[in-house]
């Protein structure tokens, strides 16, 4: 097996991992800070893809879709938090889980009614069509762009959380919401923003995945499973964990595809099983955390 093939395979794995990271990120942030297991995450990913497609065709540019869809769907996420999820804080973890599970059905069915259950084509932006010659092989320009964009998003997110006052409040709020309230912080607004951010990230993942896959109402189901696996491997609630685990899963799938392609899907779950056996809290998780 020659080296260039292995490098190309590694690159495919990183590109795949980038999409996994972005979808798992929203899930893990919402769980880590709000203690809400968002089962509608996959459906919101799908809604994001549709919104991106719709906005792109409305404005005539993919870039507007990419920018506006996460903002719009993020705002929709805030509405969901404000109207539905908010009422369930302080109850058992199952309640928001069941609520979002039901919500995912409503969203998928809603899209089926509005856009039909057949898939819709999502064209690759013209600037990113085609392949780039890397010397050792060809790689789709669009996938390289996805890797770069995800890296930028991660950097911005990290800087915001670690270096700004807003980030400080968010991190403190996740650790001890009661003290935050005593200190005069409106924790409700923080939660609203966090849920919106999580949903916005799901939508961003959907728009990014659109040109790589066909857009259809069921596209979120598989993504939800993948995002959960990544989140569990990385440790529930851990942002670093989601990034490391996402790339790990992407690269594992890609490498296994090289030697035993029919095992490519299973490897993700095998990896999760191994991690759970050795480190039940996940790679970067905190032991005994129940949100």
């Amino acid at each position, binding site marked *: 097996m020659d080296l260039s093939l292995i490098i190309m395979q590694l690159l*495919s794995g990183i590109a795949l991992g980038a999409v996994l990271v972005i979808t798992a990120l929203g899930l893990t942030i919402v769980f880590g800070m709000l203690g809400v297991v968002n089962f509608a995450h996959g459906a919101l990913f799908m809604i994001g893809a549709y919104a991106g497609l719709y906005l792109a065709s409305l404005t005539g540019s993919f870039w507007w879709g990419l920018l506006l869809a996460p903002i719009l769907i993020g705002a929709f996420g805030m509405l969901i938090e404000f109207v539905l999820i908010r009422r369930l804080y302080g109850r058992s973890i199952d309640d928001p889980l069941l609520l979002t599970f039901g919500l995912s059905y409503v969203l998928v069915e809603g899209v089926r009614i509005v856009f039909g259950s057949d898939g819709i084509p999502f064209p690759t932006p013209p600037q990113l069509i085609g392949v780039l010659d890397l010397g050792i092989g060809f790689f789709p320009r669009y996938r390289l762009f996805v890797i770069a964009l995800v890296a930028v998003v991660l950097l911005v997110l990290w800087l915001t959380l670690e270096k700004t006052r807003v980030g400080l409040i968010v991190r403190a709020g996740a650790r001890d919401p009661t003290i935050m309230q005593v200190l005069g912080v409106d924790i409700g607004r923080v939660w609203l923003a966090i849920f919106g951010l999580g949903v916005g990230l799901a939508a961003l993942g959907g728009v990014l995945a659109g040109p790589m896959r066909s857009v259809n109402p069921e596209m979120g189901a598989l993504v939800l499973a993948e995002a959960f696996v990544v989140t569990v491997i990385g440790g529930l609630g851990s942002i670093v964990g989601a990034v490391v685990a996402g790339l790990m899963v992407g690269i594992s799938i890609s490498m296994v595809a090289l030697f035993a392609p029919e095992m490519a899907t299973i490897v993700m779950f095998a990896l999760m099983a191994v991690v759970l056996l050795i480190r039940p809290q996940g790679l970067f998780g905190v032991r005994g955390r129940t949100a």
Partner: protein
Amino acid sequence: MPKSGSTPKISRRTALAGLSASAALLAMPRIGRAADETIRIGFPTPLTGPFAAEARDQVKCAELAVKLVNDKGGIAGRKVELLVRDDKLNAGEAATRTLELIEKDKVHAVVGALSSAVQLGVNEVTRARGVIYVSISQSDTINEAKDFSKYTFHEALNPHMTTAAVARQTLKKGMKVAHLVADYAYGHEMLRGFKRAQAAIGADNVGEILHPFGAADYSTFMPRLMSMRPDVLCISNFGRDQANAIKQAVDFGVKQQMKIVVPVILHNQRLAVGPDVFEGVVGGANYYWGLEPQSKTAADFNAAFRAAYGGAIPTDYGAYGYSGVASLLLAMQAAGGTDNDKVVDALEKLQYDLTKGPQHYRKCDHQSVQSVLVLESKKKSAMANDNDLFAILANDAGSDDMLRSCGELGHTT
């Protein structure tokens, strides 16, 4: 019955006896009326799940077949009713629904199923109960002796027919061929068909990659496929897998290096990913509406469909729903009713021409002998309108030579 307590003269036992007697009386005229009772056809199909688009077309066309017969007064004076059930693309679900259709709804025959595993599930049930089943799934394990029964019919094309026709149009001696195959019955059968056709033509196999069924991402298979440097890449999968695999292969620049070929090119998937992605992809098909200039039957079928569904055109899988139900109804007409053995006999003798040209069920395995189309997806600029998707490369007339021999399938005759 609030007063039952105050009338102790009627014991519970006599009451029950009386009730059952009157129930029997009520049931009697039903038996007498059986001759003009509605003919019920069960139709399990995956209305939910990844093949929902194809399934809905099947239902539309099956309903059209029933409507056309009823408009002409039904069969021997009896109306026909279609009972559609969602099999959810799950063999267990399909078996349960089929059992209900037979036991509870008392259907006279079953037509339907789309996936290979599901048709086997349906067939298990219908075979055990001696109910006629016309399968419209493009997999033919059902025709092999071990799963076959005299009540089992297969209206759809089979992998052997489509792969041979496609290979004849696309492969030449000495060409290098690579395969990307969905790792389940459908993919394996298509791969077997392609490899047999390849061997006959003298093309070389340079590699096979099996991918998990229902995968969303195919990027990880592309570098290896490219490194095999084939002239032709055969992608043998179905539904959204076909759309995603072709789309991602195109993203990786596969089309610049090799031709993409599929055993069955799907109308709805071509619509779902657009003309640019599918441009130049070649695949087999049972039906394409564009057949109408060459076939009077196709023109009539299209016209009937347009009239019923506001000017829309029937798709490949829709045509299966139509011919599956309509051929069965023709046989019932010939048999003068729903007597199972007479209908089986009539189906075996039937020469029918419903959507695209003459067809008949082969005696030994009940496979429908029919023409196979080979289509090439058109370039966007070459499309005359939104429905002008494919160019017809070949229309191979049906013959027994297209099929695996009866002996190979394990039939004694």
